[in-house]
């Protein structure tokens, strides 16, 4: 019984620490979990973002662009060729503002977190924006 208690404690601790997320990570994970293309959850390729999702509860992250639906990063100048055409999610407002492939962004302004989406760009890439995220559309 005592051994089982030990095992339970360690498993719980491992699970808790495995998926310990910062508030920013949590928000971005929530966004990616809500995104879907034709009712299929999206697969993300990380490209040097400021806030990485590795180690979070979001597991649809791939190492190769070819398997991804969305590229997640800060800047996309050095993006591999096979990813160039994919929709992007940024952590910089300027990139979101200027890059036509960026469908949304999460960034900070004056100490306040901001989440923004472009409805037109999402539609272009057939990305379904759930009602929870529509209020952040500009």
């Amino acid at each position, binding site marked *: 019984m005592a051994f089982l208690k030990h095992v339970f404690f360690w498993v719980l601790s491992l699970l808790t620490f495995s998926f310990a997320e910062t508030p920013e990570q949590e928000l971005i994970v929530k966004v990616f979990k809500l995104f879907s293309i034709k009712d299929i959850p999206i697969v993300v390729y990380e490209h040097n973002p400021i806030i990485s999702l590795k180690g979070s509860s979001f597991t649809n992250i791939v190492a190769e662009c070819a398997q991804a639906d969305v590229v997640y990063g800060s800047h996309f100048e050095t993006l591999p060729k096979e990813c160039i055409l994919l929709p992007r999610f940024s952590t910089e*407002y300027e990139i979101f*503002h200027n890059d036509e492939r960026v469908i949304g962004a999460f960034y*900070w*302004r*004056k*100490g*306040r977190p*901001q*989440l*923004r989406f472009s409805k037109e760009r999402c539609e272009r890439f057939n990305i379904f924006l759930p009602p929870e995220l529509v*209020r*952040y559309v*500009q």
Partner: protein
Amino acid sequence: MFNKIIFSRFLTFVTVLLLAATLVFYVFFSKTKDEIVTSFERTGVEEVEEISNNIAHYILNSNGALNLHKALVETPTQREVLERFLATFQTQKIQNIFIVDKPDSESILFRVLLDGGQEKSDKFQFEELFEPEAAASWEEVIRFREPKVIYQKDRVDALWATLLYPMIQKDGRVAILALDFSKKHYQKVVSSLLGLETFLKAMVPFLLFIFFIMMIVIRIDKEREKEKVKAQKALEELNLTLEERVADEVEKNRQKDQQLIQQSRLASMGEMISMIAHQWRQPLSAISSTVQGLHLKLSLKKFDEALFIEKLSDVNRYAQYLSQTIDDFRQFFKPSKAKDEVSLEEVIEKVLGIIRISLENKQITLIMDFQSHAHLMTYANELMQVLLNLIKNAEDSLIENHVIKPWIKISTSKNDTNLILEVSDNGGGIPESVMARIFDPYFSTKAKKDGTGLGLYMSQKIVEEHCNGVLRASNSSQGAVFTILLPRCAEQKEE
């Protein structure tokens, strides 16, 4: 001097006083702290409000347009001028200063018109949409056109607050001038006050806890004191009645002893009657046969005077013998008033004089082994009763166990300190299970009608208390052995 209860009560009183004082102080302090904080807040907000008022007045009057957004769209240069103007107000105290309006009343997003920020990465772009925290407060400013302060995380001790100042434009629309201002300059004082308030707050339940503990301690002490008084009273009562109770118990014991002695006497009397009957049987039989013989002679008319005189003389001798027997028994069972100088052998002979016939009738062999021949001063009759009792017990044991060739051995011996009298038999001995109890009163292994259970008890009492000796029981390979040790006096030792 304080006793324990008074001291506990005094401590409780002090605790209650402390509790009341802390409570009053806490309420007073809490009120004062709120006033201090409010005063600081008010001063800080008034200052920022004044700045905001000046900024709003200047910006709204810097152009003739009805709407600020329109004016800024039309003249981008003015945007730069105004942003520079806003930047001049940015100090350590005012961190961010920007102006927003709300183009779409349905959306949660506001539109930034001007930002006095210098840092490029954190600077709003013109018309950048912005979602404020606590958006409802921002909506209220537009709706009610009244300034409002939003505290970070809704706490008065937050380091930053935002003043939302309504800018009523010429077309009637409201823009908001937002100023993030620092409260650091007085926050240290507020934090200290809050810390002190928390401490006082914690003191109240702590003192309350102490108070309850004290109450419990007093209660326990009170109970203990009650028990102590009760026990003392009981002890006093016991002391008062102790003598009476001791006397009662002594009297009870005396009565019990008398009862035992009485019972023992009755038992002895029974034995005496039985022994007299034994002693008398032969002479009575002799008298009877002599009288019958004489009667026959008379019937046959053969009267012989000489024979008659001889036979009547025999009858007289028999009658004398009977009388002597009664005297012997009376003497035997009469308690000795003074110690007599006797030898163990004399005592034994006297006892055998009474019981020998009974033993012979039962085919019990008597074995004598006398090695002592010394005299001692003792209560001879009591000692005879003891010896008689031991011999009777041996006899009963031999009869009960149907021993073939039964014998009783009576031996005497002596050592430096004692004369020793031993009565042993071949009746099988005393079972080990009852050995420890044979000298207890009312303990008997004989069938109930035969034994009173007092014989050995009384024998031991007589030997130990009257004769200052020791009576011991043990088992030999053939049967029981009772040993009487009687102390020798100095003269006897020399003898």
